[in-house]
Structures are given as C-alpha cells and as structure tokens.
C-alpha cells in the first residue's frame, strides 16, 4: 500500500467500524438513518458522535427498524441528499423490501454490510452469509481486506454509485469481528482532498421528489398488454447495463484514488504471486491476509502457487477472473458462506461460471470456512494449498471441504 504519508493526511489507529464512520464523515453525507445491530453497532455510535460533535453536518434519524432505515434514505436521496446506513444479518433481512426497490430506482445509496452469519443456528459473529444472500438483488458489492481498505472503499463507493453511467446503490462489505473490531494503523485523508475527489453531489438528477420537477416516482409498469412488457424489459436491461458499466467505473475510480492518495487497491480482483503459478487459491474479504502468508510460505518452499482475491463481487468480474486464472491447472476457492442449493460456496459457484470464459477447463474445488466468527488461519490455507496442489496433479475434483470441521 502506501510508502509515503500524504502531507495533509493524518495517522490514526482505529477498527473497521470507526474507519467506515470516518469515511462517511469525509464524504460529507447529508442524511444517516440507522438501527443498531451486532457487529455494526459501534459504527453508528461513532457516526452519532461525529454528528453530535459537529464534525459531520448530517442529519441522523434513529428509526424503529431497518425497514424504515432504508425507506427514510430513499426519500432523502430522492430529495437530493447523499445518504448512508450500515446493517447486517437479521437487520438486513428486515430491510429487504426497500432493499429490493433501491437499485431499480437507481438511487446511489451507500450502505456498509458489517457481515454476519445468518440465523439459524443463533449467532452474532462474522461470516458472509448475509451479504451473499442478497447478491442477486442489484446492489453493487465490494468486499474489503483491511481497515484501511474499508475507509478508502467507503469514500470511493460514493463516486462509483453516483457516476452517471452507474447510478446504483452500493454495499461496502467488511467482515464482522475481524474487520469491525480489529484495530489497525489507518491513514486519514485530508477533507479538502476528499471533497475534491468526490466532487459535487448530484444524486437525483434522474428521479426526484421536487416541487420544481413534478413527477410520479415508480408508476405501475409491466403487465401482459400494451407497452407493458417492453417497458419493463427496457428498465431491466438498463439496470443490467448500469451494473456492467460499474466494472469500468470501479476500475477508474480506484486508479484515480491511487493517483490522488497514493494507495493503490486492486479494484476488481487482486492477483497475488500469480507469476508462473501452476495452481491458485481464491479468497474474499479479511481472510486474504492469512491466505497470503500461507502462499508466501509455500512459495518459499518452491511451490508454484498463487492467489486471486475477489474485491468486487457484484458485478462479478468474470472476464478479469478468467484471464487471471487462464494459466493455472487447478483452483481452490475459499468461501465464508454457504450456497445451500449447490452444496458449495457462492464465490466458488460464480468462479466456475466465470471459468467458462477461460480457454480450457480448469478443475476447481470449494472450501468453506470462517463461519459464525470461526478463525481462518494460515494452517487452514496450508490445507487448501495442499489439496489444490493434489487437484492440479490428478484433476479429480471432490466434494466441498469444510475447513473448521475438525478444529
């Protein structure tokens, strides 16, 4: 990451929840609506403090539940406000009705998912099950690896979501427990530089609650007769196009961030030690740190293994992934959540679909670990590397491996 601290940046030590709150403050958000839920609660406490201290000139609405959280923010966004919330797990589930409506309205809300495993079994700890469960709703999703990446990505999320070619709500996901409460060194960029980076707020140029521009928002569309079917398809295709546009916009915004602030985060996927790799492991989120250590150790032993981390999960960077994996003979994909219908991880599912774009078939296996707060250690990734190496040798895929099964 950064070699030299930018002159006007400040160094702080904070956890991922505080880093997200700092980012919201620096993004000069107008309206925050929140309902507390573990492990997100401290994030909204930081925001409430920033607003009470006058650091952030936003209005905060403490509503009675998550359904109202997002309904309030939809109204605020339609009225021209830059908006923010954070939630997870059961809170995200309660938010689902307005959550589904937001992308179709093309409202550029930014929402952190402090990822948490879903009930049942009863659990309050981290896991990607909540965020992965909403992967097909139409929000963009980026998964962070470090506290610094949480801060930087949350600011970038506004520029991506509000880009006129995108105009889609964006989830910045950071791992419950491991990133939400893990403290690290963090560079706090200068307010003026962030304001210059983000530019003018322009969130309701296309749809608005505005007496100067009277319009009906979301009139009845579709049905079997008249112009209904084709009109509905037109909006659906428009939303798909905006989502695909995000691949380019996310890449450009990350590049501009790197130029302005000196920190270059991989926008879609990160290829780590993939030069001449014979086989690869894939990761998402905070587990990547331990996985990189395991890859380093394996490389030091002479193993030809590399790693590909997925940062942008929606839209899925299928072509970038296929290109990155084109030279390997096997892939082991590690998920922190479960696709019940396929008996594997959802990232694995997406990855084998993306590998259709690769010139040849690449044998792949699904590994699931880190559920409900369980730790994914270097030791676990040594297992993944060893099993994937075997796969590269014999090409025989096997059932999903559950990494914490014997911990």
């Amino acid at each position, binding site marked *: 990451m950064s070699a030299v601290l930018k002159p006007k940046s400040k160094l702080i030590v904070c956890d991922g929840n505080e880093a997200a709150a700092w980012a919201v403050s620096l993004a000069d958000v107008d309206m925050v609506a929140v309902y507390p839920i573990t492990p997100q609660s401290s994030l909204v406490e930081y925001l409430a403090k920033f607003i009470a201290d006058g650091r952030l000139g936003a209005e905060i609405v403490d509503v009675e539940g998550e359904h109202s959280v997002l309904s309030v923010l939809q109204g605020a966004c339609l009225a021209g406000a830059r908006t923010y919330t954070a939630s997870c797990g059961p809170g995200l589930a309660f938010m689902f009705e307005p959550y589904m409506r937001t992308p179709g309205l093309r409202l550029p809300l930014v929402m952190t998912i402090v990822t948490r495993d879903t009930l049942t079994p009863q659990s309050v700890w981290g896991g990607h099950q909540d965020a992965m469960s909403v992967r097909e709703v139409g929000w963009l999703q980026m998964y962070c690896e470090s506290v610094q990446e949480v801060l930087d990505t949350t600011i970038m999320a506004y520029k991506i979501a509000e880009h006129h070619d995108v105009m889609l709500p964006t989830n910045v996901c950071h791992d419950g427990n491991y990133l939400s409460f893990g403290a690290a060194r963090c560079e706090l960029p200068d307010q003026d530089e962030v304001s210059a980076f983000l530019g003018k707020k322009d969130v309701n140029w*296309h*749809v608005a609650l505005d007496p100067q*521009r009277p319009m009906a928002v979301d*009139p009845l569309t579709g049905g079997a007769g008249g112009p209904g079917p084709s009109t509905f398809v037109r909006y659906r295709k428009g939303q798909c196009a905006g989502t695909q546009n995000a691949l380019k916009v996310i890449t450009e915004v990350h590049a501009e961030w790197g130029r302005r602030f000196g920190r270059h985060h991989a926008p879609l996927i990160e290829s780590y030690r993939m030069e001449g790799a014979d086989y690869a492991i894939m990761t998402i989120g905070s587990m990547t740190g331990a996985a990189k250590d395991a890859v380093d150790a394996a490389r030091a032993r002479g193993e030809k293994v590399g790693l590909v981390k997925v940062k942008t999960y929606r839209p899925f960077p299928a072509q970038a992934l296929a290109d990155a994996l084109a030279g390997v003979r096997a892939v082991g994909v590690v998920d922190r959540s479960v696709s019940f219908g396929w008996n594997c991880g959802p990232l694995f599912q997406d990855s084998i679909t993306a590998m259709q774009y690769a010139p040849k078939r690449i044998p792949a296996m699904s590994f699931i670990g880190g559920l409900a707060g369980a730790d994914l250690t270097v030791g676990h990734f040594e297992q993944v590397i060893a099993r994937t190496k075997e796969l590269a040798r014999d090409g025989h895929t096997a059932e999903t491996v559950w990494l914490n099964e014997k911990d």
Partner: protein
Amino acid sequence: MFDATTIPNDLCPIATKPNPMLPGDWRSMRPVVDRAKCVKCAVCWLYCPVQCVVEKAAWFDFNLKTCKGCGICATECPQRAIGMVEEAA
C-alpha cells in the same frame, strides 16, 4: 416542468404526464343512494378513501369517474341508505 427526454429512457421508471385512467374505469360495483333514507349525516363523505362523495341539495351522491366501488360507504352508512350494484358486464 421536468423534461423526461433529457435522461435515458431505460434508467428509472418515472411518469411526468398524468395517466388518463381513473378508478371508475375498472370498478365492478357501483354505490346507489336511496334518497328517501339519506339524512345527509356525511358519514359516507368522511369514510370515502378517494373523496368521490358529492353533496347534493338533500342527499349525498358519488362522482362515478373516481369511485372505485370499494363499498366502504355502504358498509359505514348508519341509515343503510347505500346499496352496491354490479356494473354491467
């Protein structure tokens, strides 16, 4: 007035022209007042969800362009002065 042609037409469902359809266009039952029973208490006027009740000299009547035929007026009328009649098929 907002010019919807200034934005892409596949972006977001909005409408800037009023829809010519009114609730009366899809009504299946219509309210009919028995003028002999109506005492002008205005309970129907209070309850009507689309404000289609119209005041006449000695009774209340309905604007059938906007009446959607929900029958709330008939249920609430203390005089049982309103009947719901099926619209012609």
